């Protein structure tokens, strides 16, 4: 049976991982390549690199570390951040990304998803959505969750998938950083309308939050988190053992 995927997300600025991590045995905790290898060796099923660089030089550093990472570890790599054009897809794909995640870029340029899907295939296009409750519905926010686009998140996701997105990352701004668990209500609503894999993001605080996620909505394909992995609050290998114990299929 297909396993539930556990995916750590690394924010990278100017070629370094932001928010230093705290692992024994890792000499340079801000080195993306070393950290990626650590996660891969400890059971991560995929990795997401999120480029939060603003400068051109920083972008170059990002593609360099992407190339180094993709030459070192052999699990799927998704890259997001600053993806606005098909040329941006090309730039990261040729440095070893397997999938490219679009967020604000797809809002600014509605042709981005269909163009990228036609050129590289749906399996390569991930629609990442930051959503938040506004007046009883879910709105799409852009620019790292700062600006309300007014778009209805469910309609936006449905349209993105119809246009060729092969996977959806749903990040709930309401639960993000609160560490009280994933936004099951929002995830359930999205799960009802799409048939491509949905990755839950935002709110994981402990292993039990992943158990609850996969038990409550068995269709959810993966759980993504950043700080709880980086700060060592949850070790991926322990998390997977816990999931397995609860009867959830994982790769161990």
């Amino acid at each position: 049976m297909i396993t539930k995927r556990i995916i750590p997300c690394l924010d990278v600025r100017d070629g370094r991982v932001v928010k230093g991590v705290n692992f024994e045995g890792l000499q340079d905790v801000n080195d993306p390549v070393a950290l990626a290898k650590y996660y891969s060796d400890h059971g991560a099923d995929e990795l997401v690199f999120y480029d939060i660089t603003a400068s051109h030089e920083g972008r170059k550093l990002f593609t360099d570390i992407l190339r180094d990472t993709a030459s070192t570890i052999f699990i799927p790599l998704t890259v997001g951040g600053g993806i606005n054009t098909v040329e941006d897809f090309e730039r990261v794909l040729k440095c070893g990304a397997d999938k490219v995640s679009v967020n604000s870029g797809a809002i600014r340029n509605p042709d981005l998803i269909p163009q990228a899907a036609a050129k590289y295939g749906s399996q390569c296009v991930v629609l990442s959505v930051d959503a938040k409750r506004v007046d009883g519905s879910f709105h799409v926010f852009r620019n790292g969750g700062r600006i309300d686009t007014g778009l209805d998140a469910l309609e936006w996701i449905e349209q993105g998938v119809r246009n060729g997105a092969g996977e959806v990352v749903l990040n709930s701004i309401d639960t993000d950083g609160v560490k009280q668990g994933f936004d099951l209500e929002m995830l359930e609503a999205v799960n009802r309308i799409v048939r491509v894999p949905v990755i839950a993001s935002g709110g994981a605080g402990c292993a039990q939050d992943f158990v609850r996620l996969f038990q409550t909505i068995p269709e959810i394909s993966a759980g993504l988190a950043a700080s709880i992995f980086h700060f060592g609050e949850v070790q991926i290998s322990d998390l997977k053992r816990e999931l397995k114990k609860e009867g959830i299929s994982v790769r161990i």
Partner: protein
Amino acid sequence: MIAVVDYGVGNLFSLKSSLSAIRADAVITRDPAVIQNSDHVILPGVGAFGDAADKLRETGMFDLMKETAASGKPMLGICVGMQLLFEKSMEFGEHEGLGLMKGTVDAIAPCLSRNLDIPHMGWNALHFVHPSPLFQGIREGEFVYFVHSYAAFGCEDSVTAVSEYDLELTAAVQKDNVFGTQFHPEKSGEAGLRILKNFCAL
């Protein structure tokens, strides 16, 4: 030397990196002479079958792949590269494949009894149905990485491993010197590297 056939389909970065990680002497090429002189041939592929088959023809690789198979040299198709080994595919209309193995590539979705995600994406367990040198040192139930919405059907005489996704999906095939994996060994961690190594050692 291992020739990775470059016919303009997909991203060969990971495949190239994993072959160098196992210290295989590999070149990415569409030069017929290089492919003819190689010891092993890998046919990669992502995207739609029809598009890949067209590009295989446009680059002159279609007949060369048939010749390669007939030469007895080890040949490995990966993902759509595996699907191309079959007679035909029904993805967006009917398309002719290399016909090296009996079987048809068809959509997974209509065969599912439950509302499972399409594509079949992620790590799934390999179950061996026939021994293959590709799986030497690989344990039954080992996890490998898949991304596909179409699969090979009617290939009972060549299937070597399956994965369960409501139904048994063709995960790997072999007919004499021709091998195929629906999954991506270059994305399947240590197990994937071992499978590539086994192929290169043939």
